[in-house]
């Protein structure tokens, strides 16, 4: 939940700079969710060099958001920016596919 606030703050400051805006939907403390948060964090640190905002949302806490973002399978990470929007589901253990989803596959 701390991540969420942090993400929101960053978003306010840096959106204009072409930063990655990511939203991660998880369901409480399920094994998949925990793994997903860890994996996303490490990938972001490694490949995005801090140029990102990550918002982690627990849909158990905010179920109304689940409908707004059309969440079905969780964990789900939505890349809001840069365009195009991409969705990644799963525990983010397949780093290659996560990077593909983030549009960084060629770089790696």
């Amino acid at each position: 939940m701390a991540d969420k606030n942090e993400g929101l703050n960053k978003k306010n400051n840096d959106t204009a700079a072409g930063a990655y805006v990511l939203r991660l939907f998880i369901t409480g403390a399920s094994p998949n969710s925990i793994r997903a948060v860890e994996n996303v964090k490490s990938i972001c640190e490694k490949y995005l060099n801090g140029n990102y905002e990550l918002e982690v949302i627990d849909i158990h806490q905010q179920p109304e958001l689940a409908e707004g973002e059309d969440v079905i399978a969780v964990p789900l990470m939505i890349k809001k920016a840069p365009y195009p929007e991409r969705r990644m589901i799963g525990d983010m253990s397949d780093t290659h596919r996560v990077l593909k989803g983030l549009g960084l596959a060629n770089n790696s």
Partner: protein
Amino acid sequence: MSKSQKKKEPVLYGTLPKALTGITGLDEITGGGLPLGRPTLICGEAGCGKTLMSIEFIVRGAVQYNEPGVFVAFEEKSDELAMNVASLGFDLKKLQAENKLKIDHVHIDRSEIEETGEYDLEGLFIRLGYAIDSIGAKRVVLDTLENLFSGLDNQAVLRTELRRLFTWLKEKGVTAIITGERGEGSLTRQGLEEYVSDCVILLDNRVVNQITTRRLRVIKYRGTVHGTNEYPFLIDEDGISVLPVTSLKMANKVSTDRVSTGVSGLDNMLGGKGLYRGGSVLVSGTAGTGKTSLAASFANEACNRKEKCVYFAMEESPNQIIRNIRSIGIDLQKHVDSGLLYFNASRPNLYGLEMHLVAMHKCIKQYKPSVVIIDPITNFINIGSVSEVKNMLVRMIDFLQEEQISVMFTALSLNTIVNEQTDEGVSSLVDAWILVRDIEFNGERNRGLYVMKSRGMKHSNQVREFIITDTGLQLVDVYLGPDGILTGSAREQQMLLERTGEAIRSSAVNRKDREIIRKRKVLEAKIASLHTEFESVEEELNKVYLEEELKKEILNKNREEVMRMRRGETAENKEKTKTSRKK
């Protein structure tokens, strides 16, 4: 049969509790609706009405039974859905505003999704749970869940999650409908029927002879009796109507009331009173024998009695019928205007037999007539086999009898098989069968009418000549002469001949009568003269007799005188006077 019993007392026996769908006919087939608090699978091919049936379940639940519902649409967006069902009179927007309905559109696009490891469908559960809790939903529809399979790769995850979903839905206690596309060799493409084991309904859309009929079948329904047949259903402006189960009990009420056919001659043939109320009558005959005219006068008569009548016109348009019937002096237009007569015109080829049945059913239920006319049933043969048509008519007659509605069918029979069964083979089903046929004789064609059968009443075995005049229909006795049956102008001629003969005969009789009178007068005159003769003879005889009497008297007197004179003395005094007088 046991269905109605079951419906009455489901709670007493502790049978499966059910949720009424509110869909016409479906509740009868399922004996009270879908299993309460359990998921039901509705499967079928594209375009057979799965979505419509499920949305009707939700809407009717919300409107009629005060059970809010959640509709999870995997295919259509909520706006599209609202627009699609607006034509059926369902106002989804309003229901959503009243919190009676919640539509959740789930969009899955494979191209947008990257699968990066293990996942589950907890998101769907949470969304659904949230939607259910937010409006207190009792009903849930998942339309079409199988779209998940096209959006997501991991089949193993999907299957375990689906299994979990159905258990979860049961735990939630919501009555759910899951729809699924029909697959090759199985009910659904993804084998959803494995997971939903309580109730499975199959919808079908079949084209036979270029005519499409939608059908519904309850494949399984655990823990309850249900109709097992295929039932045709209709989607129209009021939603879905499933044809109610044909009653097989044959325990219909019967009436001893009689209704006039509108042709007094025909009533006379039928024991003088006409047909039984709630009975069925078939009028068959070759082309142009006046079947429609008979049917129209039956309808007219019913309207004159201030009863409602529905006229199913299968061949002519209502205006055509009204115009044509006006020519025989029957004004149907005024009955149409007063609302007593309702025309329902449709071509037989419009839809399948079963659909006709459903449509007629609906119309009759809505209009509640006491007389129904189907003119003609012949054309149904174009859209089904003899046995199918017969089957349909049996059900029609059955339904009408149950509702105590009199029905008149007309049927065209071909020239070659007059007097035989009609094409539709319904002659054994109906209560009365009137046959109108041509009698061709002497270079002209006339109409003859028989009552082939009329159950439960005395009826004439005579052929009547059936005449269509400017003032209606009339039945005349045919002339049975030495040369056989005479009709039309031959009959008229014969009747003229007979009248002439009669006139001649009667004049002859008159002459004889006069002769007799004359004879009598002559005789009477003779008798009078004899009488007078006799009187004069009698007088003559009497005269002689009187004279003799007189003579006798005088003689006596004289003798006495003489005797006195002989005595002398006593006669002195007298003598004195006598002699003095002599002197």
